[in-house]
């Protein structure tokens, strides 16, 4: 009861949601990038599939770089 009154559950909910989404998002982006890279290296696949693999890997690298930059901004700007 006391904890229910004292805790800002909305804020805590946002923290939990942001943490889960960020953690899962980065792992998913990295895994897609790795899978795409594996496609790109597979010589048994068509040229189009391999090119697509390279493109997806590049996009995922960009996504990860953006996530890192965004995380850095989040920590430093509001401190």
């Amino acid at each position, binding site marked *: 009861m006391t904890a229910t009154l004292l805790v800002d559950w909305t804020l805590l909910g946002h923290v939990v949601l942001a943490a889960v989404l960020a*953690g899962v998002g980065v792992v998913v982006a990295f895994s897609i990038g790795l899978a795409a890279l*594996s496609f790109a290296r597979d010589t048994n696949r068509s040229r189009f599939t391999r090119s697509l693999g390279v493109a997806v890997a590049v996009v995922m690298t960009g996504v990860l770089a953006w996530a890192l930059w965004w995380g850095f901004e989040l920590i430093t700007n*509001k401190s």
Partner: protein
Amino acid sequence: MHNTLLLAIVVAVALAFDFTNGFHDTANAVAPTIATGALKPRMAVALSSVFNLVGAFLSLKVAATIASALVAQNLVTLPVIFAGLIGATAWNVTTWYFAIPSSSSHALIGGVIGAMLVLAGGHAVLWSGLISKVIVPAGLAPLVAMIAAAVAIFSAKRLTTKVDRDTSSMGYRFGQIGSSSLLSIAHGTNDAQKTMGVVTLALIANGTLASNSSTPAWVVVSCAFAIAMGTFFGGWRIIRTMGHGFTHLTPQQGFAAQIASSAVILTSSHMGLPLSTTHVATGSIVGVGAATPGQPVRWRLVRDVAMAWVITLPAAGLFGALSYYLAHLIGGTYGVTVLAIVAAAYVTFLLRRSRRHVISAANVNDLWGEPVAPVEVPTVVAA
């Protein structure tokens, strides 16, 4: 009242605690990296140490919470902070000896609150701050980390079913260098701040700083270096427990666990919540193990560690209360000096006992449950 000598002793003990904090928590960032062979043990702790240093400079929100939201600043005295730090350091070294990944943060908060209760009673503790910023996040953090890590590893496995094992291992090992560095930064943004907050409290208690002042730059720099040095020495006992004790980690699982931990810690640092990085890292490791069908998790060890988490706050509080009572009984700077000597003797005793069963970079990756290979111990002169 100004007491420069006492303040100097308190700051020195605070930095010693910060060192044990880094030493104790090295495992949080590097255990999966070492266990999966992504980096050699020495290289992993060196990298973690550098990034802990960087992280310590990025945010001061947690320091502000520790300094202002847990105890009544106007009632805090230097002996209280000293006793709290002694209690926390004693608890940290004890749990390190038994290879238990317990929370340095809760040890520190418990130690200061225990001493404060003896000095001024319950009204000196800001219970609302303690519940909302420490106890509730402490209960939630490992569960959130466990869920994030479980969802992450589930998704990663589905996405990489067609990737051959060698490419997957190599890719995730490479990724682990980044995730371990990120987790070390996260640790620096949360844990280094706690000692900064306590030193700021000491400066306010001594009258050196006005109430609600921000953390001075020299405090930030010295605490950052102390935690980085502690990290560099590596708490190999706890690294072994976290890397091999709970479950067998693959590079993919190690990566997912470290990223999930980083996300939880960095988000909470942003909100100024001083949660336990140890709880988060442990929750993530258990989460990836539990979410992998057919993979055994040593639930008995998880239960024992969780029990240690529950008793950390009251046990460190008891250490802190006893320390304050003893220092107060002897009185003044003498009391503090005697207590510092007793604490140093206790730490030396545990360090010497730990040499009977050494765990180091050489044998940290030996299989769990099998006897650890003996390590050559160089002869040392007793401190």
